């Protein structure tokens, strides 16, 4: 009798553990290539692919690692990355069921990797940023199965939302940081913007900053502080920079963020080739201070000799912040710190991620690149870290007028 009881208890425990003990850290575990299953009506999957430019939601069932979530909503997502053959997806837990969560998450993103032949640019960058203390979403990869059929290798990306803000910023003065004002920067095609003041009307700021929390609050409460910040950034003398702009932007964090983007040779980021792009902006709860959150870093690693001061004079916030000697010095220090951090990690991490996704990438039935293109990118990317580390160290030394390290040209 006792033996049967023990066997039954063990079986029950074995079944229960996968469901109960798992967390969002397990889902985004960077060491694991996950498998995600979505079950949605065959007509809906066809419709979603045919209408991939629309944000229409479709009901689905989600399965991961023994956990089933009924009634999730999925939709096509992305800006330039949208594809009908391999749609990027947003998976919302509470679209059809208010308050529903999955491992504490309200949503996550399935990135179709449509802009990166290597597949790993974004995941390497986000892990690197996290190592440098820059707020960034957790990411790994998954094989996505729709209706039981493998439909491709996807990036599995944490949504930048209230839940993530609470995780990243924790409690400040006893207040969990999950109810501030979160904005996604909206790149407006044909209207590059570099933090220039656009007048007291809130409309241009509403266009560029999509509110993601507290949407029901009034315009003045939501976008008024952004208008004020942009005005002050443009009108404040650098002698008062810390007191006035520093009270509204976490300037040390901002400097680390732009330095990290420069180190990864990100050409389409805050100091991008066509103005600002690809970031979230969070006004901390009960505070005037704003921080930058990394997003969509899938076109980095452009070239190892990407200039360390590329376009630093174009953006008003960047230019004026770095004209304060303390922050200029911090910028170059952050570049060197990034180089140090990358030196014993980045190439190995790239290789590890390539090893993890290789089979899934090659088997991807709708990948947007040939295997040869993928292999060529692999070679190119693996050569990047060492060359970039040397280049950055040499250029920083050159700028500072200090002795140049070995290997400089």
């Amino acid at each position, binding site marked *: 009798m006792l033996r049967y009881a023990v066997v039954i208890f063990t079986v029950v425990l074995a079944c229960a553990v996968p469901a109960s003990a798992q967390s969002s850290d397990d889902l985004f575990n960077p060491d694991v290539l996950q498998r995600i299953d979505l*079950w949605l009506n*065959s*007509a809906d999957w*066809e419709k979603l692919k*045919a209408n991939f430019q629309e944000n229409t939601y479709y*009901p689905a069932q989600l399965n991961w690692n023994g956990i089933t979530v*009924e*009634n999730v909503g999925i939709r096509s997502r992305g800006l330039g990355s949208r594809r009908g053959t391999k749609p990027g997806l947003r998976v919302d837990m509470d679209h*059809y069921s208010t308050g529903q969560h999955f491992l504490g998450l309200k949503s996550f993103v399935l990135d179709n990797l449509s802009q990166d032949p290597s597949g790993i640019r974004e995941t390497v960058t986000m892990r690197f940023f996290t190592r440098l203390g820059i707020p960034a979403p957790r990411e790994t990869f998954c094989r996505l199965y729709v209706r039981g059929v493998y439909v491709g290798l996807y990036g599995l990306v944490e949504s930048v939302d209230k839940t993530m803000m609470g995780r990243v910023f924790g409690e400040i003065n006893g207040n969990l940081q999950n109810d501030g004002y979160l904005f996604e920067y909206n790149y407006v095609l044909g209207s590059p913007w570099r933090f220039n003041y656009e007048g007291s009307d809130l409309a241009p700021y509403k266009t560029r900053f999509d509110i993601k929390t507290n949407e029901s609050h009034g315009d003045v409460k939501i976008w008024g502080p952004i208008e004020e910040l942009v005005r002050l950034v443009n009108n404040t003398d650098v002698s008062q920079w810390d007191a006035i702009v520093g009270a509204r932007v976490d300037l040390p964090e901002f400097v680390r963020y732009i330095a990290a983007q420069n180190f990864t040779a990100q050409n389409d980021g805050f100091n991008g080739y066509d103005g600002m792009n690809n970031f979230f902006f969070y006004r901390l709860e009960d505070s005037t201070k704003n921080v930058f959150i990394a997003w969509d870093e899938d076109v980095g690693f452009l070239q190892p000799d990407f200039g360390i001061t590329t376009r630093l004079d174009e953006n008003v916030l960047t230019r004026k912040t770095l004209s304060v000697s303390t922050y200029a010095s911090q910028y170059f220090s952050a570049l060197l710190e990034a180089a140090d951090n990358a030196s014993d990690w980045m190439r190995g991490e790239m290789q590890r991620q390539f090893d993890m996704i290789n089979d899934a990438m090659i088997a991807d039935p709708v990948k947007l690149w040939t295997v040869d293109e993928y292999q060529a990118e692999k070679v190119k990317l693996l050569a990047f870290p060492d060359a970039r580390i040397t280049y950055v160290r040499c250029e920083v030394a050159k700028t500072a007028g200090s002795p140049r390290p070995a290997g400089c040209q």
Partner: protein
Amino acid sequence: MKRARLKHTLLLTSLLVIIAVPVAAQTKKKDRRGFVWDDRPTIVFGEDINLEIKGRTLFEWRKFDPDIGEDIFHLRTARVGMKGKLTKHFDWEIEREITEDKNKKVIFGAWKDVNIEWNTFDAIKIRGGRFKMPFGMEQTTGISDLDFAYRALGSTQIAPGRDRGMMAAGDLGRFNYEIGVFDDDGDNAESNEPQFVREGEDLKAVGPAVAVRVIGDVLRVLPVGRLRSANVGIAYTNSEVPEGLNSLRGESVWGKHFFERVYVKGRRQRYGAQFDWSPGPASLKAEWMQSREDRKEQSNRDQDLSTFIADAWYVAGTWFITGEDKDNNVKVKSPLLEGGPGAIELAARIERLGFRSAATTGLAFTNPRNDNQVPNSDTVFTIGVNWTTSKWTRVIVNAIHEDFEDQARSPLPGTGTTSFWSGLVRLNIVF
């Protein structure tokens, strides 16, 4: 501003018309050829050939508690049309809505009735064109003859309304029958989304719909006293609905959605029953109706889901305190313009419209592909006074109380409020 201008222009024009009408009516019936103004402006070509001009405007002043963001002054309906006789064998009718385009320019809107009827024999009349499908007693009553400002919810959301088709109808003594075949399934059930066609598939049409209604005074054979004069009827419709987010949906009196569409595919059937009793100045009316929609292959795994069901009923009573007989053509005993009080009628109605799935087991969600749908309903109580001042004008005062079963899908979700009061004063001008 321009919208307000349209409303005010129509109001002023309508008032001028109804003041002019009694004067013009003085000359009626002296010569039955040429232009005459009996109930409406008419050109008489001969004994059985004429052309009547008809129009109607319905204005409302409304109040909401709590506020749900609706306009206070509202032009409910503006329509113009023509009807007439074409020999003693045919009647015909055309009616169209007047509305505004997005640039606030006044334009003709949707066609309402466009039909011709062959009516040589009482036992069989044939009607063709666009007209109301024979389902729903209140739905097939003209908007200006209703006892309340708004039809019961079931009449506008389960009953199909107008469509293009052919119908045979007739009077068989104790029974009237109507049976028709229609292109689609009525304006009230129009598809919500464009049909999605996979490669190699053909576009599937909604319908054709078949509608049947039989009404009779079957209580005449029973020992039920004055109730023997009551009419009772049953109705049925059947159509095929193509795959899509195309089910019927729940809208409150003021058009707020309290039940969104779900995915359907297969048959849509409606069942209806009606009761109508008008003893002297009072009336008692009641209807019950139900729609049942198939959801074949509509689950996330392409399996069949349980039938999607909408139920509605109402019971309504009216009483002319000024003593007029309640029939389809109320004759005001003492019109206002002749120094009388007009006809004053009290009215009350209780009704309910609800949506649910046949399946009630398993987790209930609002997901449009879930087997067990979270039910929701709107229970409405309306009381009112109808003041018929002349044969062309009527003022309707209604107080409406709505109560929603699911707060999350009420007009103000998240506020904890499920009950809403509203009131309106409606001016009907019809000629």
